[in-house]
């Protein structure tokens, strides 16, 4: 029931907003088309501003993945993961999640297929993917759009959130399923 409501909201939200916002604008005597064009003009420039930031981050991550450094990292941290009862099968996903959206999606799909969609690991993988975002992509896009280069505590704060979310995923799934 709740799921159905949310699904309907997701389906209708964009068309309703696209019509509803100018409608309220008209009621308030806003010259909606003129104002729209005025704001929309910035779109191209903002997108172009992001390019150098995104190329920088994605290239570094692409090189790291390509070299096989990911496997080394996973193997090296395996004993640590075992010590805190973090399933080693899910560890690569926990690391990938913050780095690459397409990579972590592929990894999750693979885990779900290998262990089965209704297995504990399958659900843990799905929960891990769904409970977080591709941190470095968000970082590059958000700060790139406004050309902020000194990000201060953004990376540590976001990574702490990612680590906590990964641990919470394992704990919550072990408890629920």
């Amino acid at each position, binding site marked *: 029931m709740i799921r159905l409501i*949310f699904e309907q*909201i*997701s389906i209708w939200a*964009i068309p309703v907003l696209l019509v509803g*916002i100018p409608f309220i*604008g008209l009621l*308030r005597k*806003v010259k909606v088309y003129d104002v729209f064009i005025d*704001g*929309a003009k910035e*779109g*191209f420039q*903002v*997108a*172009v501003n992001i*390019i150098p930031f*995104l*190329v*920088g981050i*994605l*290239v*570094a*991550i*692409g*090189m*790291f993945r*390509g*070299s*096989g450094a990911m496997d080394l990292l996973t193997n090296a941290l395996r004993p640590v993961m075992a010590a805190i009862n973090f399933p080693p099968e899910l560890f690569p996903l926990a690391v990938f999640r913050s780095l690459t959206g397409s990579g972590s999606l592929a990894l*999750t799909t693979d885990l779900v297929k290998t262990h089965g*969609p*209704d297995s504990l690991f*399958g659900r843990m993988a*799905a*929960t891990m*993917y*769904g*409970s977080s*975002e591709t941190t470095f992509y968000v970082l590059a*896009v*958000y*700060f790139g759009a*406004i*050309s*902020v*280069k000194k990000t*201060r*505590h*953004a*990376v540590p*704060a*976001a990574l*702490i*959130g*990612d680590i*906590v979310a990964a641990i919470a*995923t394992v704990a*919550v*799934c072990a408890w629920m*399923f």
Partner: protein
Amino acid sequence: MLNYIWFGLMAIALVVAAFNGTADAVTKGAIDSAKTAVEITLGLIGIMTLWLGIMRVAEAAGLVDLLGRMLRPIMRWLFPDVPDGHPANGAMVMSVAANMLGLNNAATPLSIKAMEELQSLNPVKETATNAMVTFMALNTSGVQLIPATMIGVLVAAGSRNPTAIIASTLVATAIGTAAAVAAAKLLERFYPKPEAALEAPASSEVSQ
């Protein structure tokens, strides 16, 4: 921080490639990723133009301001440096709402709009403000009410109960978000604010 992570990822790749003999794959990773980055950005142009236009209409109609005012208590606690009634409040609410609903197409442009509003309060344009980092922490932890992509993956794999993960995802994401925001709030004390951050927003408000 980003300087070291950026260089570190590439340097490690080179060293590992030397041992594994994966230099080709590193080259391919670099070239493909550069191409992907530009493709992603080009894909954003249309949707970004659309939402920035619609957001300007929402602003002119007073909707952004209204949204910001409705959630004033939470916003004031999360973003104490953002003055009441500043359009950044409404823009941030819109962006978080779009993320929660999983409206990925709208979420990115709305978030960027919010970052631009926050940038207008920033005295040192190159350096992130506390509000920017808190806002980013809120969004990188990815609060989403329905993990639609994952339900799709489970369905495709033949799950008998694909929606079982909704509850676990909600709990995990809530914990992660709380941790990210708490970390942003705690860590901000150890990183000096952009200079004159306390004076500049107030005086620029007056001059407007």
